[in-house]
């Protein structure tokens, strides 16, 4: 079962933690809001993805289970 990252755009306040912690999959737009690379999170990045989710100050970053 694969997992994907998703942002709740209402909760996100562009603190930028996820961009710092997971630049492999998350970049910032011109205003600092995260842009997530499409597709499932590669297995070797899952621990980093979990850490980025945990570090988000507004709990806006989500790691979804794909069906």
């Amino acid at each position, binding site marked *: 079962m694969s997992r994907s990252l998703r942002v*709740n*755009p*209402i*909760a*996100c*306040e*562009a603190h930028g933690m996820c961009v710092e912690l997971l630049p492999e999959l998350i970049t910032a*737009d*011109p*205003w*600092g*809001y995260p*842009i997530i690379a499409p597709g499932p999170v590669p297995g070797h990045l899952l621990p980093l993805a979990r850490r980025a989710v945990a570090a988000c100050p507004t709990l806006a970053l989500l790691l979804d289970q794909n069906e």
Partner: protein
Amino acid sequence: MSAARAMRAAGPARRVLPPNGLPRLIPPDGPLPLADHIGRYGPAPFQAGDLITVVEQAGLTGRGGASFPAGRKMRTVAQAGRKAGPLRGSGGTIVVANGAESEPASGKDRLLLTRAPHLVLDGIALAAEAVGAARGYLTVDERQDELALHLAAAIGERERAGQNWVPVQILGVPARYVASQETAVISQLNGGAAKPAFVPPRPFEKGAHGRPTLVQNVETLAHIALIARFGADWFRDLGPAPAGVPGPGAGPAAGSALITVSGAVNRPGVYEIALGMPVGELISWAGGPSERPQAFLAGGYFGGWLPYDQALDVPVSDPALRAAGAALGSGVLVLLPESACGLAETAWIAGFLATQSAGQCGPCVNGLPALAGMLEQLAFGRADRQALGWAQRLVTLVTRRGACHLPDGAAAFVASALATFADEIRQHAAAGPCSRVRRRPVLPAPGYVWGQWK
């Protein structure tokens, strides 16, 4: 439906025949009092079989903008309702009929609610029975007091006649573009602000009062009221046959639809057409162009621009309009005259849409004003390669970045303008803004003044 019930209600001398041809939804002599409504269409056929399957077979799609299959949505809500079970004694699902019509160039929902309120109320009751809902809401633009009173009178008429099968409450929705979006209506019903919410949970899972909720446009519900009476085959008797399928219309382009035609036509107004009618024919229905035309806007501000001569043969249906680069949306067609500047019109609406943001999502709050600024530069300032590149980049940057589809709609609208008005951009770049930019905009943007997005 039960013919016996129809005969009883309408009197023995009258038989109820399905409406032949058009119009189906809007009686020319409406609004009809309840007794005349029942006389014409027959009573709402409750328990006349599996309505959801019939709606699926009819191929009815939502007429609020997204063209989502109506039967599939009903089935999902019904299933979610069974799964949720009764909660604290208030079991069941909820039906929300969306008549707020926040698309500025659209007038069809208001016309339908004014002229055929009982068809919409029948649709609410029938859909409620099909999905297991014990109550319904009907949303209208909160500024339209008269319409709300008219609908309250129609509901009162049904109560007095003992025909108000499902209690329906009228809800005034703020006059903001995104306030009538599904999750925004749910949020308002739950006591919050009329702003879009992050999904999931989607309304069909957890909507009004935490119950699975069916949100359908009022026109969709009026179609359901007729499909319940006259069947899927009757509904599909209008509309084109998809490629390779013999017989009358089926699939996503079936049935009739209400289209609001405006701009440079001699007889602007709401027209009920068989889906699949070519754009050019609809323009003829609307009296033809009132001045030299240059482009169409199809689908409203979530739709797109199409060049006039290339679009005349395009069928008015969501699949065909999407293939051409626009959409059916809520059934809006605006004819842009050559005396207007397509870039200025697009800048005008890009600015309007920027002011319509609910202010919740960063990419929308920042991106839509940036997009509006870049369009104003293309129309009124230096339409150079750099400005065009920025506009294209912003289109990509805001798409699918919000909780609702406002940024996606604004981006698609601008992207279609950059393609349709490519020649104008080159002319503006070579010779500066054209003289037509000073014309009063053709497209409606209620309450908006130039530069208000700043």
